[in-house]
């Protein structure tokens, strides 16, 4: 269980207090605007893109190879970009803040 905050493109903060699963699943359960997770987490669609708050980059870790190749094709990504379906929520991520950026 962890407390996560999603900052949407509209500027809303969506807080999930009892998060588990992947970040994308948590976002969908909380109807976070801008997270579709269309492919359900198999790294095919890039509809769950987030930018990790700089303070959390080390704990969240880098993108996987397949994920990074997908991110590299997009214009709006940078070194904070991750696909939220590829981030498993752990207690270590309690307090994590991510920005939702639709691609």
């Amino acid at each position, binding site marked *: 269980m962890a407390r996560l905050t999603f900052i949407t493109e509209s500027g809303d903060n969506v807080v999930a207090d009892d998060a588990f699963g992947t970040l994308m699943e948590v976002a969908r359960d909380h109807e976070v605007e801008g997270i579709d997770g269309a*492919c*359900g*987490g*198999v*790294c*095919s*669609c890039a509809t769950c893109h987030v930018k990790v708050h700089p303070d959390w980059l080390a704990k969240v870790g880098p993108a996987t190879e397949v994920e990074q190749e997908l991110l590299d094709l997009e214009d709006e990504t940078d070194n904070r970009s991750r696909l939220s379906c590829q981030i498993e929520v752990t207690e270590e991520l309690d307090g994590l803040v991510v920005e939702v950026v639709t691609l």
Partner: protein
Amino acid sequence: MDKCPFHDAFAEHRKQGDAIPITFDDEEITMILGFKAVRSAARDFGSFSSDAPFRVPIPSEEDVRTVRQLPIELDPPKHKTYRALVEPFFRRPLAPEYAEKVSDLIEELLLDASGKENIEIVRDFALPLQSRALTYLFNVDESEAEIWTGWGIHVFRDGKADAKDDFSLEDYINRKFDEAEASPEQPDFFSTLAYAEIEGERLTRDEMVGFANLAFAGGRDTIIQSVSSVFALFGMQPELLNKIRSDSSLINTATEEFFRMVTPLTHIGRVNTENREVHGVETKQDQRISLCWASANYDETVFKDADTFCPDRKPNPHIAFGNGAHTCAGAHHARLIMRTLLRLIADLNIDIKLIDLTENIEKQNDYERRTGFESLIVKLNRTTTSS
């Protein structure tokens, strides 16, 4: 009978490189094959343009329609403006009440089919499913599906809607827009387009028809083929269905694996904007290239055991819905249908026995590819489980 309805039609072609010259109905086309090469080219509108009426589909469709299909036959940024007009309809499948309707529909069809001696899946299950579900997407009365079902598997090339002289699809679409324009605006697909504006200007009738034409044609044989493939594969490999039945977490990954292996649309065309070498193939300005999704999705450098259906494949970065700005707008709808179908076949304890099938083969000089079925007869049995 084979153990798998899918195959990699381009394995030998990929050995020649990321692109090869092919002849398609007497047209010289440069076919891009490798996964990364296809994905990059799909996003490179400067080199490979979609702004080409009738020439995005392969084969081209000058002979079967009179209007530019929208928004697919446009490049960004104009494409984005046009796509935004219909995007809300294609996001409707994300709503829980929509998912519930689709579930009710598929359950009704499965229960009906499982009460019969046998059923021809393509025309008696997949076609009515596709047609009725499309009424939900368009937000029109479900009775409209009776007309659509009558058009057959492919709105341009099936049975009576086959010839240039018989524009039954366009006639129908025009009638719907006539009706929409004669009435106050309604929240359905036709009325929304009839009243839509871009930069303060209403759409032309050709533009409206172009939107509707693509919405009907693009999601028809693709969904029918995907749905049919579920019955074929589970009929050939019942152990796969048992695996999914015992682990519902596989429904999503198995759905994506169906899309990867079926890849209903073999390829899509773009027009080369200037003379250039495309992965070693000299390609002239205005010559078409093919983005071969069906090859890319079997690229063994990306997909291990690409010829094997792996229900738990993850990651699975397939591009069965295309890639980039033109990624299939109907993907949410298609995914919902397939996930629901898998879930219900599992939950309703339906077993599938294959009786007979006739494959569709896409046959060109340079390749042959299985693309679904002309006919697929199965028997569906509901089994009872002891608890």
